């Protein structure tokens, strides 16, 4: 059982819930947890969400509202601080990064796929790791960029995270950054060269992950250095 201690709006469609969970055993950057909601008549619905907070901090999940979803609209619109929800986790031991694994680190996010990658970026900053790290982040518009200000702050400083945005549907006036979908050509410009031994983590919708993962393989990344996590519209 966990208590929602804070609910933070990230974008009009995305919210972060900070949880206080007795007995939370700690998590690694990239892991997820299961949320279970129970209606008064006992009906239950369960979903998995990536943990957004870095190891050592209380678990936080960042949820995007899917319009026809069953659980995400409740978590984004209804839940408030003080509410209690059941959680289980952390889960998963594959899609994880820690500074000892080295780098360079390439994070490629599509939409709310940025969440587990943010846990890695936050860990890297908290641990003062100097592993070179680059985030390529595809969003629909500037308003849809999750963690926008914090990403700006993570990019500052001598060993800052390099952040490259691409905005695929709408761009602010004067936008000089990328404005197209991530494909092999864009990866060729942004990704670390394959010879660097970079470790890539890719998270986003299926078609996005499919395009990025095969693009990286085409650029010479060995398959075992491209870890993927995908989400469909699962509500």
């Amino acid at each position, binding site marked *: *059982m966990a208590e929602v201690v804070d609910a933070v709006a990230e974008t009009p469609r995305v919210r972060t819930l900070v949880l206080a969970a007795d007995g939370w055993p700690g998590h690694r950057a990239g892991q997820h947890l299961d949320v279970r*909601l*129970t*209606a*008064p*008549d*006992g*009906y*239950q*619905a*369960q*979903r*998995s969400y990536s943990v957004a907070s870095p190891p050592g901090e209380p678990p936080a999940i960042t949820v995007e509202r899917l319009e026809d979803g*069953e659980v995400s609209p*409740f978590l984004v619109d*209804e*839940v408030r601080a003080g*509410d*209690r*929800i*059941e959680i289980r986790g952390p*889960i*998963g*031991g*594959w*899609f994880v990064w820690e500074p000892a694994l080295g780098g360079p680190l390439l994070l490629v996010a599509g939409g709310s796929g940025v969440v587990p990658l943010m846990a890695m970026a936050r860990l890297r900053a908290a641990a003062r790791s100097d592993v070179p790290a680059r985030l390529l982040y595809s969003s629909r518009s500037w308003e849809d960029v999750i963690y926008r200000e914090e990403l700006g702050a993570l990019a500052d400083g001598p060993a800052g995270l390099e952040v490259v945005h691409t905005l695929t549907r709408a761009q602010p006036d004067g936008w000089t950054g990328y404005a197209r979908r991530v494909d092999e050509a864009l990866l060729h410009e942004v990704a670390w060269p394959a010879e660097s031994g970079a470790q890539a983590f890719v998270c986003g919708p*299926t078609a996005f992950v*499919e395009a990025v*993962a*095969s693009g*990286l*393989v085409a650029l010479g990344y060995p*398959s*075992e250095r*491209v*870890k*993927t*996590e*995908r*989400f*469909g*519209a*699962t*509500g």
Partner: protein
Amino acid sequence: MSFFTRGFEGRRRDDAPEGRLPPGQYLTGGFPVLSAGPTPHTPLEEWTFTVEGGAETARWTWDELRALPSETPTVDIHCVTRWSKLDTVWEGVSVDTLLDAVEHDASYVLAFCDGGYTTNLPLEDVTGGKAWIAYGYDGEPLDPEHGGPARLLVPHLYFWKSAKWVRGLRLLDDDEPGFWESNGYHLRGDPWREQRYWGD
């Protein structure tokens, strides 16, 4: 039920026929994709299917596998990420047909795949008409995203056991955790018992 979530009503899923949806699952009409790495693309002329660990190693080329008697099972599938899909139609070769070609006294198998993925299963979960090497889905060749050219199909277990891009089975005396089974997921994965994670 003493605890409930304030304000949560949920959407009743009464579209699932009685007894078809395991606990904690919901129905989907789509076919979500989950995999741990890039989609491999092995040319069919280089593709083989191997059964090893028996008295002798058996190997089939793509054409040889396609020439074996095939079946078209209609089955429900259940992903550990909680979606279930009913009445999916596949085409493939029964694992019984392949294991009949090999003399062995194994108790477990480890399926191995392009991309390095593995998954472990007790022999009784892949014999007796319960498992196939599937190369067709819904009347079409199996899409690479969904495991094509061929995937293991073991529909009575969580779908991670139905290994995509399968290239062979290793016959074993003892159970040996595969990829997800080494990363927090249950050794057997029976959806009706909700065997999702370690400790379930």
